[in-house]
């Protein structure tokens, strides 16, 4: 019996006494792409951070392929993109990727780093310091950082927000490759159109609860706001 790629049961997250997430249970089988949608403050980022092991839930369990996300094995299999690009301004693109390759104990850090610089179109600026990069370049580097250790599970928090065209194209290509390779993606988003293109499943989160969770349908692709109008609050 295979463990689901990402599974959480009975998740509650408290900030002090206030429940930001109430009794969230989700199961995402391997190879699926879940679009997590919801209004600001609904709990998308909180949930993603708990799934990724960045925060601890007040109650409930999370498992990544059957393991607690904080376990070393699980951490190797998780890749994430948060609100910040999570690369160092004072280091070059190559140095950054080499650093993360080493932290993830990849066998050939240098080669992997260069490979991902090529895939994200940053090969020519590999020795440039990140603080001199344009916004689009920074985000492409963030994608490289997230994917370079070959994670099986990708947790992306609003990855398409404020990307330029080239970065959007890079991200979509990388995501399609990842999904084709059997990876699992959970992506929170406001950009309904891009999300619906890639998603296989959709979940709506509102006021800390899951209001809807199901497969992506034709209607959703045609009218990305369909879920909101049927399951969201006014």
């Amino acid at each position, binding site marked *: 019996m295979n463990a689901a790629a990402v599974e959480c049961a009975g998740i509650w997250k*408290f*900030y*002090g*006494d206030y429940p930001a997430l109430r009794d969230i249970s989700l199961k995402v089988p391997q190879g699926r792409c879940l679009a997590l949608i919801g209004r600001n403050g609904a709990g998308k980022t909180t949930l993603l951070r708990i799934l990724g092991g960045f925060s601890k839930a007040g109650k409930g369990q999370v498992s990544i392929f059957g393991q607690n996300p904080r376990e070393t094995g699980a951490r190797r299999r998780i890749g994430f993109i948060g609100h910040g690009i999570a690369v160092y301004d004072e280091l070059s693109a190559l140095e950054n990727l080499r650093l993360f390759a080493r932290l993830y104990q990849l066998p050939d850090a240098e080669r992997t780093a260069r490979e991902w610089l090529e895939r994200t179109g940053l090969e020519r600026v590999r020795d440039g310091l990140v603080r001199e990069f344009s916004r689009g370049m920074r985000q492409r580097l963030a994608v490289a950082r997230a994917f370079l250790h070959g994670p099986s599970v990708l947790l992306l928090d609003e990855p398409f927000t404020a990307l330029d065209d080239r970065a959007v194209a890079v991200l979509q290509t990388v995501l399609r490759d990842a999904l084709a390779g059997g990876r699992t993606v959970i992506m929170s988003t406001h950009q309904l159109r891009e999300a619906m293109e890639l998603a296989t499943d959709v979940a709506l989160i509102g006021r800390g609860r899951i209001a809807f969770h199901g497969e992506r349908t034709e209607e959703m692709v045609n009218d990305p706001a369909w879920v909101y109008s049927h399951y969201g609050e006014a």
Partner: protein
Amino acid sequence: MIVMLALAAVLLVRNLYNISVLPDETNQGQIFRIIFFHVPAAAVAMVGSAVALLASVMFLITKNFKYDALAVAITEVGLAFLAVNLVTGSIWARVIWGVWWAWDPRLTSALICWILYAGYLILRQSLEEPTQRATFAAVYSIFAFTDVPIVYFSIRWWRTIHPQPVFFSKNGSFPADWTLTLVLNIVALSLLYAVLTMVRLRQENTQREIDYLRRTVHAIS
């Protein structure tokens, strides 16, 4: 709680009477009586710091906020008792030696402990998010209160190796019947400590409830 308060009050009154009735000590005159409050205040504060340390560790293990509430209540009350210790020590020093402060091992250690307690409270005040506040405060208190015995011994070593020009013997001859009063005062102050801690605990729980209601309102509107 009322019972404890009453008991504390009774003991204190009895002790005050006994203390005032004691004959003047030969060397020190009236002021020696202050020791009946000076020493118990410190003793009780030290026990309090040990309990606070325990509460902090328990919080980190169980993540139950009631331990966090206990830790902060005990530390705040302990701060007050340590202040009593420092002030009475200072008054005593002024009367006996003519100086408001002397760098003797016990007073110095007490001052440093007071500063560590105060640091704990300042840290708490600077952290807004309750879970982070409780966790970080607990970590700080483990560091700070592990330091307390080290502070005490290091300062004692320093004063042993480099004795101060002024010698003093706080523990001169201490008649047996006084010991009873001293011990009873320790009990009385302990009860007072417990009562104040309970008051503070109640206030802490009410505060948490208010925070909860506030956040719920924000979420609904």
